[in-house]
């Protein structure tokens, strides 16, 4: 339990609560992600995958049930507490890189650290360079975010998600917008970080090939977990094939 990164107990989510159009999209989700797990969430469009990811990412609150992130009961936290916990414990990678175009690659990676520490110290810069080196894009560190290829941008986005050394990285279709080669590269790097740092990864994907390379596949249909399979360790899975 102490080693859990994320735990959901009977989490429900409804929209338009208290109105005739009230709709429940998550119907009592119980889920635990242990530290260092690399899990995939699959399911058809509209099944509630993204809502689940937003709730785990503290961008949205559950209507009922409890959510624990890094051991903290999020139901007792106010907006400020949730924001702080999100900044420190959770990294996001989205389908579109969502880098801030007004900044360079390295500045985008520095951004979460600046949000926390306000001033751009040398230590923050060093950490950003280290992450970009790890993502194999250090030579492009001073490129404006908009002047990079899709694969490079997504690697910057992964570096940014790792900036605060979060316990959990949530990735919504992280390779959905990339060609196979770039997608494999990004996936391999995430996998390597997962092994090196024991960072928990939760990927939402439509790509079954990608899902099969994860440790665990959680299927969500109509707001319910319909299957939760752990897969046997696969040597190729870690190395990638790019």
């Amino acid at each position: 339990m102490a080693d859990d990164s994320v735990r959901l107990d009977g989490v429900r989510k409804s929209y338009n609560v208290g109105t005739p159009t009230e709709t429940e999209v998550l119907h009592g989700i119980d889920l635990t992600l242990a530290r260092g797990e690399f899990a995939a969430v699959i399911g058809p469009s509209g099944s509630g995958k993204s809502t689940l990811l937003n709730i785990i990412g503290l961008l949205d609150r559950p209507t009922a049930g409890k959510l624990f992130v890094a051991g903290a009961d999020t139901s007792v936290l106010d907006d400020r507490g949730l924001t702080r916990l999100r900044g420190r414990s959770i990294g996001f990678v989205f389908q579109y890189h969502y880098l801030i175009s007004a900044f360079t690659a390295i500045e985008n990676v520095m951004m979460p650290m600046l949000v926390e520490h306000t001033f751009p110290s040398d230590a923050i810069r060093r950490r950003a360079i280290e992450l970009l080196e790890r993502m194999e894009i250090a030579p492009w560190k001073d490129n404006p975010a908009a002047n990079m290829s899709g694969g490079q941008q997504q690697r910057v986005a992964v570096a940014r998600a790792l900036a605060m050394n979060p316990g959990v990285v949530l990735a919504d279709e992280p390779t959905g917008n990339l060609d196979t080669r770039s997608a494999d590269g990004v996936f391999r790097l995430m996998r390597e970080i997962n092994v090196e740092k024991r960072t928990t990864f939760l990927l939402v994907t439509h790509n079954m090939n990608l899902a099969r390379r994860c440790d665990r596949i959680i299927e969500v249909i109509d707001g319910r977990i319909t299957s939760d399979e752990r897969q046997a360790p696969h040597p190729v899975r870690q190395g990638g094939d790019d």
Partner: protein
Amino acid sequence: MNRWTPFEWISAVRFLREGRIQTIFIVTGVSIGVAVIVFMSAMLSGLQVNFIKRVLTSQPHISLIPSMEVARPLRHRPGMQELAIVQMPMQRIRSVDQWQKIRQQLQQMPQITEVSPIVSGSALAARGEASRPVTMTGVEPATFFRIVRLPDYIVAGQPRVTSSDIVIGTELAKDLGVAVGDKLTVTTATGRNNTLTVMGVFDLGNKGVNERNVYVALRTAQTLLNLVGGVTSLEVTVNDVYAAEIIARQIQAMTNIEADSWITTNVQFFTAVNAQKTTNTVIRAFVGLSVALGIAAVLVVSVIQRSKDIGILRAMGSSRGQILRIFLIQGGLIGLIGAVVGSALGAAALIFWHAYFRQADGSELFPLILERQLFIATALLATVTGVAAAMAPALRAANFDPVVAIRG
């Protein structure tokens, strides 16, 4: 990135830089607004200073004149009512009673800077066949020229008035065909006359005054107007020109002689000055308002354009306060940069205007007053306006739901 610059400032500056065209347009708009305010404020205060200077260097601040003569019929009998038309008596030229004593009293008042006696009356100035009616003023040059700066307006000759001298205006000189050194005869209604030498010609900037007013020595005027030893008025200047009316009332209470301040004798001028001030304030307020609305409009668009960035920043742990500050700083920066550029533009326009637009006589239209306070106040006000204008868009940005913002 400078290591001493906080995250919110870095983001605000980058957002402004990235939205280059938008930023250039709004900063230009703010600059023009500020330039108009700076230009108008400086020019109008300069014009006012000039007007007041002109008015107050060609007339005294307070004039003490003998009271009007009134007819007082003795007819009040108890129980009797009478209908009568009382005719106003003729106003003879009379002297201010005990004027030497009053002058001494006035000279002891600390607010009063100068007291000068004058004798004024109408006369006829003639040279050969030509004659013109004039208002002759007999003065003590030593004191009077410190009240009415006649020497500043002399265009020919010198402002000297000894017993046989006269100083006249340009129009009268033209009408009578006289120049400095020529003689003319001044005759009054008493039948007395004197032949005087034109010592100086002045131009007070007013055709009527240049045609009518002539200045002679006090004793010459006293003799011509048959008022030997007397004066028709005491002319006074004071330290604080705006307190003239209050001082006039004090003098009246003290001496029992009618005292008129320049404020009551120039009511129209004051009304004009006040109307100008009000117009200026109204224009400035509306220019300020349109500047504020412009900043707000641009930032509202910017917030919509940046909704994804805002969502990402929130997902990365930015607080609502940080997002709020990013946009408030943008508003403040637009205001400040606009104020600096606008002040420079306004000052340049003022210098240009001052150099190329002159009065009919070639003197400056208004004194060039570039007060540091005006620029500091404008910069502060523009920055505060920018921050205030940014409040609504900034609040909107801070209250974005990150999920909705990221989804777009």
